[in-house]
């Protein structure tokens, strides 16, 4: 029983990480139909922001809390820079955007290697995030619990922003119909940039969270990015509830497969499940477009 619960917790914690990464992805994907392969490197930038913050502020707890908004800002600005310089030129060619952003991610990884060195840097976790709490009699590390809370918090805030602020309305309008939104007076270009800022910023926050459970190194983004893409694909474009469901579904499935098989077999099975799922619902769990032919 303990082993099963432990596996469930592992699944939940993986799901929260994937959710944090996929939230930003699904936002930019839904808004602009753009797959940003450099999203993982924004995550890495967030993690290094946490590292730098800790160099300035010794106290691990304070620096972690400071790093969260700072990483949001750093990654968000990187995202806007990318959007303005490259992505905005490529709106008619979404697949080319994917390759261009892959080039950007190569460059960013190498920059991180040249600045911080190839070996992992140490980001100390504050003392209140290093212990265990017992949930239903099975230990759950507080670091992972923090990530779960952070992921759920981000989902809540993002949903509220999208549902009931002027910015959220504009974003939803552009997602649903860019042309009509423009006719109604929405500055869609400005909305694009803001969306990219928020989506990339969320990757930065995810990066700070990852320093608690993974090593901070130049290639950390590529570890999770493929799985995060699968979450976006399975969840449906631009759908937060889809991302939540898909993240927890895939996270728990992987944990279940990893329990009975090896981790790598679990990955293969997961891919098979996603492909099989797309047979039933090619558009993902949820879909904005209702009357489209394709």
């Amino acid at each position, binding site marked *: 029983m303990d082993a099963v619960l432990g596996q469930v917790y592992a699944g939940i914690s993986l799901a929260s990480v994937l959710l944090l990464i996929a939230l930003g992805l699904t936002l930019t994907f839904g808004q602009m139909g753009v*797959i940003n392969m450099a999203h993982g490197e924004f995550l890495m930038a967030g993690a290094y922001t946490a590292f730098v913050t800790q160099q300035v502020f010794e106290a691990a707890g304070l620096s972690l809390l400071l790093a969260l908004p700072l990483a949001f800002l750093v990654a968000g600005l990187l995202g806007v820079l990318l959007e303005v310089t490259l992505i905005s030129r*490529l709106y008619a060619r979404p697949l080319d955007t994917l390759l261009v952003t892959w080039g*950007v991610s190569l460059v960013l990884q190498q920059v991180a290697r040249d600045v911080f060195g190839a070996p992992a840097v140490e980001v100390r976790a504050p003392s209140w995030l290093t212990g265990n709490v017992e949930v239903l009699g099975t230990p759950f590390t507080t670091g992972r619990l923090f990530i779960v809370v952070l992921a759920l918090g981000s989902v809540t805030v993002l949903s509220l922003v999208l549902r009931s602020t002027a910015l959220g309305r504009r974003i939803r309008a552009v997602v649903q119909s860019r042309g009509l939104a423009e006719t109604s007076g*929405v500055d869609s270009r400005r909305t694009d940039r803001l969306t990219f800022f928020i989506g990339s910023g969320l990757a930065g926050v995810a990066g700070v969270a990852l320093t608690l459970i993974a090593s901070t190194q130049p290639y950390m983004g590529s570890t999770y990015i493929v799985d995060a893409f699968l979450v976006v694909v399975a969840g449906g474009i631009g759908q937060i509830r889809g991302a939540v469901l898909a993240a927890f579904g895939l996270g728990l499935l992987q944990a279940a497969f990893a329990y009975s098989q090896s981790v790598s077999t679990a990955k293969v099975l997961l891919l098979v499940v996603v492909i099989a799922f797309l047979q039933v619902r090619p558009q993902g769990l949820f879909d904005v477009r209702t009357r489209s032919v394709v």
Partner: protein
Amino acid sequence: MSASAGSLRRPAAARAGWTGRAAVAGAYAAAAAVLLLGAPALLSDFRLRLLTQFLCLAMVAVGIGLAWGRGGMLTLGQGLFFGLGAYIMAMHLQLSDAGPGGRPSFMVTGSGAPWWWELFRSPVAAVVGIVAVPGLLALLLGLSVFRRRVKGAYFAILSQASAAAFALLLVSQQNTIGGSNGLSSFRQFFGYALNDPVNRRLLFSITAGLLIAMVAVVHQLMRSRFGELLTAVRDGEERVRFLGYDPAVVKVVAYVVAAVFAAVGGAMFVPVVGIISPNNVGVVPSIGFLIGVAVGGRATLLGPVLGALAVSYAGSELSARYESVWIYLQGLLFIVVVAFLPGGLGSAFGALPRPGRGRTPVVGSDEPGPAPAAQDGPSLVNEPEPFGEPVPVRTGEVR
């Protein structure tokens, strides 16, 4: 996107009539002869080996040129097929090195080789397997994905995930497939000792011959009705469907051909380089295959080959001494070529129409000019469809 305009034109040979066609064919034959005869005579053994290795990568590029450049399917997972071909070849070579009934030296536990190794013990079975296994897998993947109209970025991500999963699977199988070390140290290639320089030249000739054959296959495919359909699917999948064709079939054929090319490239890579490991098949090498294709011109006949050769050469010259420079260069190539020169580096010199000017009517063909709907967003990808605009919902809410 006018890279598509360039490729919508029928190949030069088709336009020029019989004499022109003969001239073009002669030029290709001359180039092939120079490659086949000149390279072994002029290059040192070391250089020739490098060139053979690059030719293997160029085979993958030819396939990507067909699937991505002509068909608009961005496959980020060719490492899967490259790896399948390579590992089948490697398994066969290790078994034949071990002799009848023997098993590869790296397997420390158990007795005999696993049954799926034994499948490829005979040379004929190995050759058939190199083509059939990746081909069937591509057929299965392609049918399940394209029939459900999964495309664009979705397809790219699925193909990428398949390469990632394959590499992970290989790493985990330390005892049966060599894990992260991969398979290496092969002594002979179908009975020919691999350390003999004469046999290495033979290996070069086989590789070059296969590559030339692949280019010829793509050439013929693109001259055929299938080629026209493939380009049409890329530029307007819905319209092709409404015309009564099944785009899924067209795409699956191109995808399977690309997979088989990648597998054959992988199979030749093994005896030439002497090692295959998960590092050669994962996400990073899979996307790496695309750089050469993009640089050379994705929708051209020889562009992918030349691009792959140039990029591989640059990589081998730079990566050993200036590793970080090479990575920056790779990144910048992706950014600059794909964003600003989608027709390939050649388009920078005016060989191809410039991007972003809309489609020009096709010279010398009986095709009508561009349809109005395609003018504001013609693209290499089939993402923005002229049909099915999303339904406006409660616009009163929008400020």
